[in-house]
């Protein structure tokens, strides 16, 4: 592997922690090693849980984290990449060129977290209506509970 990235293990699964600008090189190396499928792309907003302990010492925790799961079917191996994304510049390079299957997943992350992927062919909302404002899975966005009113409900005493 040409790029050196910090590595940890979580429940017997290999976890790599590349920086956003290391991501493409790391993923390129893994693709050459036989990780031909990007199983999952998702993100986590660590706004209300900043002091997480499962990061290696030389990785600076940021608010957002993009989590990419790669899978090498032939080698029966999985690897997870956790990319720290700063809140003031939430941009990650897109994996679309290597893994066309990440198209919808990256759009989903963009839609729900507001993290955009540089180089993605169609960075638009996928699940929510196009005119929607905000990114609901961010921790500073409320769940949106609406008190359900029943008609002819008894008046509160």
């Amino acid at each position, binding site marked *: 592997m040409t790029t050196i990235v910090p590595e940890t293990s*979580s*429940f017997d*699964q290999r976890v790599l922690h590349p920086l956003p600008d290391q991501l493409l090189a790391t993923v390129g190396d893994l693709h050459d090693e036989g990780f*031909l*499928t*990007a*199983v*999952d792309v*998702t993100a*986590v*907003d660590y706004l*209300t*849980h900043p002091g*997480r*302990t*499962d990061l290696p010492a030389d990785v600076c925790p940021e608010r957002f984290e993009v*989590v990419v*799961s790669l899978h090498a*079917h032939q080698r*029966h191996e*999985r690897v*997870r990449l956790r990319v720290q994304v700063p809140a003031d510049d939430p941009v990650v390079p897109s994996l*679309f060129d290597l*893994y*066309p*299957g*990440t*198209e*919808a*997943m990256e759009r*989903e992350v963009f839609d*729900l977290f507001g993290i955009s992927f540089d180089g993605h*062919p*169609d960075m*638009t*909302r*996928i*699940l*929510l*209506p*196009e005119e929607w404002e905000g990114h*609901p*899975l961010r921790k500073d966005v409320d*769940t*949106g509970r609406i008190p359900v009113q029943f008609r002819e409900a008894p008046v509160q005493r």
Partner: protein
Amino acid sequence: MSTEAPEGTDTGLGSAERVHRRDGSAVLRVSEAGAFHLAGDPDNPDDDERMILNMGPSHPSTHGVLRLMLEMEGETVLRTKPVIGYLHTGMEKTGENLSYLQGPTNVTRMDYAAPLFSELAFSLATEKLLGIEVPPRATWIRMLMCELNRVASHLLFQATNGMDLGAVSMMIYGWREREEVLRFFEKVTGLRMNHNYIRPGGVAADLPDGWQDDVRRLLDLIPPRLDEYDTLLTGQPIFRERLQGVGVMTPAEALALSATGPILRSTGYAWDLRRDEPYLAYDQVDFDVLVGTYGDSFDRFAIRLNETRESLRIVEQILDQMPSGDYRTQDKKVTPPPRVRIDDSMEALIHHFKIFTEGFHVPEGEVYVAVESPRGELGCYLVSDGGPNPYRMHIRGPSFVNLQTLPHLMEGGLIADAVAVISSVDPIMGEVDR
């Protein structure tokens, strides 16, 4: 499994001109306003016949609320844009507000044709974070229920697939057999769907007395009916004509597009998480992983039909090997006390109350667990901050990812084949939109 392709069918395997599809040129990437300008000018007779056809979201053959924007030239589909989100339920957000015990209630409503698999993935992930072992009987009960659920889900596919292709009687047959399986589910879990049966720590209740007889009845009942479907559909020339060579995909394309489940297997790539990354006790039962040859819609149909038989074979082995013992872990942290003790003991009452109001705390960490659902790899990514609710709960829905293959499968086909392709991908929109 062997299926015969008629002479001259393009199998797609190894053909060089298909490789270009990996760059995603089959995907239509325009907004609704852009689509208006893309279509040909109706007033200009010299303009080509290109037009945008909108299918859904309320369309009988789109399996719920899928919407497709098809760029057509005459009757040929050029590019496709699946528009999803019409059933977006915000389950991942809701999951952050529910405790780990309430979590299965939420995720079970994702894939409503195979609800137990979502519960299983969530429960396995939670158990991994907790570091608890599930008693063997709970594991085997989970396997029994999941395999029967796979049977029910594939029967649902047979019903809807038949209906989409004009074999309406198949719809009645598929529901008839599914109803038999659901009756057993209702007996065990109390519900026909959305069971909330598999929970972190085990299952909600033990199997009822006499469950062996019910399962044996299913084992006697369903295989002859599957043979009937074989006679009705597999050998039928019209049915074969509509499916063979339609929606062809190569293994390399399927891997690049992250397709899993029957779509990947239909291309000839033998991959089944139950065999290749065994969870539960799948390493102790004997079954075959079925693959197709041509990667077309017919292979996907045949794989699902024969997987139903394999599932029943597993159920038969489970029937013989079901161990006795507890149906949930005896770890006091996650398991409420038995009902009888609540009447006698104040502590048991408090314990019960605490578990169901506050929930249990799960150690900090993150984990990804995948199971083989009828539609492919169903993964659950859980992040815990040490509290009683998941900090982040993400479900990797196989239908959501498999839906990306639609534009590639439809490219260059006819509009009538598009219906066959949607049906053979078998998307469940609840899982796509979550």
